[in-house]
């Protein structure tokens, strides 16, 4: 390649970079296209990873099989009795609401989702889930695991969607304490050097006494197209501080749910069950 062609090539590269950087619509189309094309390969990779993990856990757990079964049976019985108790409470709640003339609260759908990949560079705390626009998944909807809030959907591709995890510094959600009407904003603070996710609740009224161990849940206040149903568990308060300005308190939270590769997650969706 002569020098003229070499410079021409370099110029084309720089021009393409500038166009792609400055045009968000092209960025989104390009990203969605590449992710849709790479989706089958990613799915195969995720399946291989799942099988390998299953095999490894099977080998390591051969000796403790009967014990584990016993433990799971016990958990199942406990969960069933808890479910029955909650069903009774719910039916009583519906009866009372009817008696008082309240409108029926709209329950939300949970769409099951498989984790197919993590972030490629490690700069972002994100994961990729399997259903995408083909299953009518929308952006800014809550993603849950049985342990509580995991994150929110934010870039929807044809067959997959990106999830911004609770610990990512770009994550924000309106929250409250489960026991009192104390409100604030829960914000991701990244991860520690041991990999522990850091989450903080900010803008808590400084005149209200909050305690270590209080449960933090979503408040259900949604703006724009966000969909975070109220009452989703986020975590428990670990430390309490007064803000630098002296106007608010903030609290460090230990989140319970994590979006691991082997977790089975759910995307909250409006509408009745």
């Amino acid at each position: 390649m002569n020098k003229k062609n070499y410079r021409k090539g370099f110029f084309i590269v720089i021009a393409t970079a500038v166009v792609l950087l400055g045009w968000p619509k092209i960025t989104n189309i390009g990203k969605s296209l590449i992710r849709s094309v790479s989706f089958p390969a990613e799915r195969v990779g995720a399946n291989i990873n799942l099988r390998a993990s299953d095999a490894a856990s099977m080998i390591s757990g051969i000796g403790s099989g009967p014990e584990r079964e016993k433990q799971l049976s016990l958990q199942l019985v406990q969960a069933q009795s808890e479910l029955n108790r909650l069903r009774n409470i719910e039916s009583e709640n519906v009866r009372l609401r009817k008696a008082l003339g309240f409108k029926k609260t709209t329950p939300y759908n949970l769409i099951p989702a498989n984790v197919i990949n993590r972030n490629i560079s490690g700069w972002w705390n994100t994961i990729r889930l399997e259903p995408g626009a083909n299953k009518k998944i929308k952006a800014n909807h809550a993603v849950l695991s049985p342990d509580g809030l995991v994150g929110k959907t934010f870039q929807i591709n044809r067959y997959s969607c990106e999830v911004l995890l609770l610990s990512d510094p770009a994550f924000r959600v309106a929250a409250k304490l489960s026991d009192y009407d104390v409100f604030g904003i829960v914000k991701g603070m990244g991860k520690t050097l041991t990999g522990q996710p850091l989450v903080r609740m900010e803008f808590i009224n400084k005149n209200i006494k909050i305690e270590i161990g209080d449960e933090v849940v979503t408040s259900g206040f949604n703006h724009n197209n966000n969909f975070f149903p109220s009452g989703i568990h986020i975590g428990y308060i670990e430390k309490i501080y007064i803000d630098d300005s002296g106007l608010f308190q903030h609290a460090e939270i230990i989140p319970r749910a994590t979006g691991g590769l082997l977790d089975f997650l759910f995307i909250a969706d409006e509408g009745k069950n």
Partner: protein
Amino acid sequence: MKTSLLLLFFFVSAAIIQQLSPNITFFGNIKFPFFSSIMVYACFRLSKRNAWICSLLSAIIFDSLEPGPYGPALLTYPVITFLILKFRNNLFHEGLVTQIICGGMCYFFITLTSGFFFLITNVREIDFFPLKLIGSLFLGSITLPICSYLLSNSIPSEERGGIR
């Protein structure tokens, strides 16, 4: 054609492995750079034209798999390619020492540029940046020799007028 398909297979595999691999928490949550190592390896072996095409396409693939805007890879990969093409005739790229130094420097440069890119565009907050830089030197210098050893001669060497 065969080389292009092979390269595509290597890039897709590297992208999947890198995404599935866990973050190295004590290096500020960075990952082993399998993807960029394959790009560096290919740039050392391909003809100038093919190296540029490979660099640009791999940068687009990498940035597409990232949640942020196009930029971190699209700005750094061409610079790395330019430097490799400029100096590769003076380097013994099959040598372990060259691979260790080049791998470390390339990933260090990628991390440094990505950090500045995020800082300037205010896309996200940066934490443990010095640790990330040290980690990238270390992980890059490990990953490139491993990738080169695993791929060994699967990409024919075109850089000095060899097989095309």
